[in-house]
């Protein structure tokens, strides 16, 4: 595999792991309320929908790989939209302008919500949680899938799911130890790098725009990573000295 393919697989793996951690937290809270069997069934139903989406869209993408430049531009734009959103969110968390995403708080909130609900509602909470987080994984697989192969991209997302589930079951507690904002920030930088590379490369000619080739991806990543931390430190909200410690 080339450096770009490893980068794509790594980005999918890490970004998927972030989403799976969130989904697992919700399922865990539901499981402690309605039992593991029903919670796992709801999670499996949500995953089945995501797997179906990945399979169906994969066939479409394989069939439409006629103009790779155009596809790269379209996917690059899509990645920029997705990546910029994550990038800004992570910067705001580092700077204390947005609360750090707290899995423990999400876990407690989900349990509180469930205490007022019956079994069916709890099932829906788990299903919806897995489906929504899974949709983000699906978007990543579709966007980055063509860099390596669609099957490898889907496999990367599935591998991260297996890892998160195994780690979650081993810990048997909300996954608060995962430094989520750091992970999201690095993934956002990677997505922005790929998005920039493909969007303008696809529109204006990759060789003309990026004379250094794939090495540029590393330079872009470093630029976005350093710039984001500078922005976060310069825009730190008053009274948020502790922000970012846990991240």
């Amino acid at each position, binding site marked *: 595999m080339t450096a770009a393919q490893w980068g794509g697989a790594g980005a999918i793996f890490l970004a998927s792991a972030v989403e799976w951690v969130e989904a697992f937290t919700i399922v865990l809270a539901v499981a402690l309320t309605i039992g593991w069997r029903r919670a796992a069934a709801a999670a499996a139903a949500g995953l089945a929908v995501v797997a179906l989406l990945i399979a169906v869209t994969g066939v479409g993408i394989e069939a439409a790989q006629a103009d790779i430049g155009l596809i790269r531009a379209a996917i690059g*734009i899509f990645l*920029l939209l997705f990546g910029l959103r994550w990038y*800004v969110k992570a910067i705001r968390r580092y700077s204390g302008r947005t609360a750090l995403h707290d899995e423990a708080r999400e876990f407690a909130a989900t349990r509180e919500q469930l205490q007022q609900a019956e079994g069916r509602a709890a099932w829906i909470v788990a299903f919806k949680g897995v489906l929504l987080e899974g949709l983000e994984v699906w978007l990543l697989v579709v966007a980055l899938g063509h860099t390596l192969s669609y099957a490898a991209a889907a496999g990367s997302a599935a591998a991260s799911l297996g890892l998160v589930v195994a780690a979650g079951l081993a810990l048997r507690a909300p996954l608060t130890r995962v430094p989520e904002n750091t992970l999201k920030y690095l993934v956002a930088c990677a997505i922005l790098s790929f998005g*920039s590379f493909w969007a303008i490369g696809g529109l204006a000619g990759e060789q003309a725009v990026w004379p250094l080739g794939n090495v540029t991806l590393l330079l872009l990543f470093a630029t976005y990573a350093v710039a984001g931390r500078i922005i976060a430190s310069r825009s730190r909200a008053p009274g948020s000295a502790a922000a970012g410690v846990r991240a």
Partner: protein
Amino acid sequence: MKKLLQLIFGDLRNVASVAVALLAAYGVSRLAPAAAGAALALLLIAAAVVQAI
């Protein structure tokens, strides 16, 4: 559906930021192709500054 669209595209400011950065970078690529990538990265970072503060 609205949630899905927001998931994909973000809010209007996010879409506008990416559109402006890409159009400007494309304009730069007509004059100096090798500078277009750097222009895009700088414009996206500037957009992040505006959105983050």
